Each structure stands twice: as C-alpha cells, then as structure tokens.
C-alpha cells in the first residue's frame, strides 16, 4: 500500500526543521525501500491556481481552492518554467471541475538551516 504524507506548517515554523534532518529522514526511509519520492515546497505565496471552465484556462495568484474542495490527488511534474507548468496543469482532467494548485518545489541543501521564509497572508 502506498501512502501520501502531506506536510503542513504555519509560517512561524516554516524553517523549524533543518534541511539536514529532512535529508536524514529521507535517506533512512530510502535505505529501507520506503521512500518513493518527496520534496519541500516553496511557501504558499509562490503558488498559482489553474482552473479550466468552458475550455478557458484561468490563472490566479495564490493557493485559493474553494473551501468545499478537498485534496484529491497529486502530480509531480517536470516543467521548463511556470508557463509550461500551467499548460500541463490545465490538461489535468479535474482542472475542469476543481482547481489545480501549482507550487514550485525546492532542493534540500545539506548544512543549510534557513530556507526562504514563508510570509503570512
């Protein structure tokens, strides 16, 4: 059975877990064959929401899912840049009914304590 573990953090704890600890955790799981993939994300204000309605792609700033919308799945994609990512996201079938949040990932860096700080809304 595969599980998706989603990580939630408030802005004041965005940098609380050092990259080294996260790298060690991933490495430990990888050695046991339990790590399939994962990545830290840039903060929510770097998100872009993509929706398709009546064949028209709408792009808005921010992670604004409707309050009734629930997390229903995920795609980890490789894209040249945000425009490319938006085009791919618009082709994900549920984009026609709900919203696709496109959030850039970042690399874990050994020895680095501070990632880009999250900013509150």
């Amino acid at each position: 059975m595969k599980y998706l573990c989603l990580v939630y953090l408030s802005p004041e704890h965005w940098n609380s877990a050092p990259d080294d600890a996260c790298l060690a955790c991933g490495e430990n799981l990888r050695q046991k064959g339990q790590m399939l993939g994962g990545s830290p994300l840039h903060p929510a204000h770097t998100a872009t929401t993509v929706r398709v309605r009546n064949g028209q792609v709408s792009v808005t700033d921010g992670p604004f899912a409707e309050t009734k919308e629930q997390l229903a799945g995920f795609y980890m994609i490789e894209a040249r840049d945000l425009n490319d990512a938006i085009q791919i996201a618009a082709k994900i079938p549920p984009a026609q009914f709900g919203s696709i949040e496109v959030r850039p990932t970042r690399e874990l860096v050994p020895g680095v304590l501070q990632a880009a700080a999250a900013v509150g809304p």
Partner: protein
Amino acid sequence: MGTVPIYPRGMPAADSARIRAEIDALYRRESRRIFATLIRLLGDFERAEEALHEAFRAAMEKWPGEGLPQNPVSWLVSAGRFKSIDKQRRDQRFDHLEDRPDVSESLTDNAPAFDEREELLEDDRLRLVFTCCHPAIAPDAQVALTLREVCGLATEEIAAAFLTPAPTIAQRIVRAKGKIRDANIPYQVPSREQLPARVDSVLRVVYLVFNEGYSASSGDSATRADLSGEAIRLGRLLLELIPEPEVQGLLALMLLHESRRETRATADGDLILLDEQDRSRWNRKLIEEGATLTRAALSSPRVGPYSLQAAIAAVHAESPSAAETDWSEIIGLYDLLLRIMPSHIIALNRTVAVAQLQGPELALEHLDGLLADGVLDDYQLAHAARADFCRRLGRNAEARSAYTRAIELTAQGPARRFLERRLAALPA
C-alpha cells in the same frame, strides 16, 4: 545616479559637466531599457538592478575623461553585465573556493553574449512588461511591479499615487519578485496562442495606471499627470510591439481622455463636468491621434471593449458642444459594449446618455432598475447620477438624499466639493 560626485583630472570643468548632464539624461531616457536587457542577460531582477547602478557609476568615472562611447546604451549594458559577472565570480570564489572551483569559469562561458540589435532591446522591454503583468502575480502587485520595474517609479511615488503605505507597496513588490524567482516565471513574451489572454492582463494594468493618474480615487488633486503620462508611454510602447486592435483602442481611449485634462478642473481644483468644459481648450493634437487610432481599431473584424470605449470618447471629443453630441450613436456604442462586456458600471454610464437624449425620467427608470440589483450600492457615481436625474425632475428630497449618500462615499476632494455645491444649490 546623477548625484555621484566625480571630478576627473585633466578635463575642463565645463566639458565634464556637460558629459555628466548627458549621463543624467541618458539615465532618465534609457535606464529602464538597459535594466530590461540586463534582466535577460543576468536572469535576476536584483542582480540587474545592481548591475544597472554599477554601469552608470562606471560611466560617471570613465566618460568625463574619455568622452562618450559611440553607442552609450550598449556600453552601459556590457559594463553592467561584466560588473555583475565579475562580482558573482568573486562571491562564489569566496563561498565555495575549496569544493567548487570551476563554477565561476562555467558561469562566464554560459553567460549569453550581448546582442545589441535594436529589436532585441525592444523585445526585452516587452518581456519585462509581460513578466510584471503575469496572471500568476496578484493584480495589485502587477500594477506596483510594472510601475516600479518598467516605469522606474520609486516605491514612495507608487505609494503616494495609490494612497497605500510605502511598506505595503514594498512588500508587494518583494513578494512578487520572490514569486518570479521561486516559481520560475519565465522572462519571455508569451507564445502566439497564449498572447491574447496575456495581452488582456497587460492592457488592464496599463489602464488601471492611467485611471489612477486621471481620476485619483482620493486625495486633493483631481489629476496625477505623471501616472497618466507613464500609462500613455506604456501604451505607445505596447502598440509598437503588438499592433493589435485592442492595443490601438486602449491607447486611443487614453489619448482622448488626456486631451481634456486641462479643462477638467478650475484653477482652484474644482471639478468641471463634460458639458461645461471649454472645448476650445481640448488638445486637438491628442484628439486627432486618438480618433485616427479609434477608426483603425474599429475597422478590425473583432471589436473589443477598449476600442468601443475609445469610440464613445471620440464622439464626445469631436462634438462642438454637449447639445450637439450624437447621443443616439453613444447609446448604440454602449449597447455594443454591454453585449461583449456586461457590467453595471457601463449600464450606469449608458443612463447618463439616455438622460441627454430621452430625458431624466427614462434615465431614472433605467438607473433604479440597476440599483435594485444591489451591485452599485457603494458606488458613488451611481448615487451622484441619481441625484442629478432627480434634481432635473424637481424631485428635490430624493436628490438631497442621493447627494448625501454620494458625498459619504466620495473621498476625493474636488469630486466631493462638487457634490457639496450641488447639494447646497438645491431649492429648500
């Protein structure tokens, strides 16, 4: 930049003063173009800003002694690029000398060669506009970022124009730049199939900037010529680069409004309405240019909302007086506009034309129908229009309460004073 004091030896004071003045002028005229190109070459807003200042500093040091280079713009671009690469090389050597000795070498090898062809420089300005107006950036940040990066306005100037605290504007800009970097918003003009949607968001930003300059939403100056001037400059640039009908339409609309700027207020800053303006003082040159652009835009098979609004403005601009205005043509244009862009505000404007052609009674009927939807509850111009229709119908009590409501909703000095005068002039 002009404040950097450089006194080179061996050069007559007058000559070096002349060259410094030329550098100042060059900064005012070309710095944003150079900046746009440096972003492409360096791939980063912050580095490009720093490189721009380094380039002008270098010019201040070298040119008074050596004279102006043959092509000052490309000299400045090259200088900025080399200074920045040099600095990055030094920083990296300092940070990673032991474990990554080859980084600085590969950096210079991979840095794209600077191509100084004029059309590429123009493309860079367009890249910058499209990046600042990317729909993945929050709308108010698009406006602030465009004014900051494309027009070169200081954060404080933007804050003053939008009556927003400077730290708020600064934070919007910082966050937007962070998103460009982290989400990897590309520095490019959108592809042909994405262009129409993306041009819309650029036009929206330009028109917002213009309107903020033309009718400041509050504060005691009815006009902010600087912002409108910037918007018109952007409009001209866009039209050069994207010769689309709606780009013509927007530029035409701005020029036609701008033609009336001088007649919109008394010397004391009191508002003068369209039908009372001194039309002999409208700027004929702007009207001619705007009307020509409007006709060109309207000849396109797909006529858009900016072109139709320009057409309405052109009918006003070319009428010798309010009474001689072709109001039925204006109503017809509003009908077309409402068909492609249904909006309560456009429908409200239409009622004002109806009042002119068919009288205030029918106009009031239409307006009350709109007000019943509730959308215009807090829109001061809806209440001001209602007050005016009621006043003309002699329904003074209703006019009085509508003026009062409009005044409550109006922060801007001149518009507020105008309404207060009208209220005071109502018969008891």
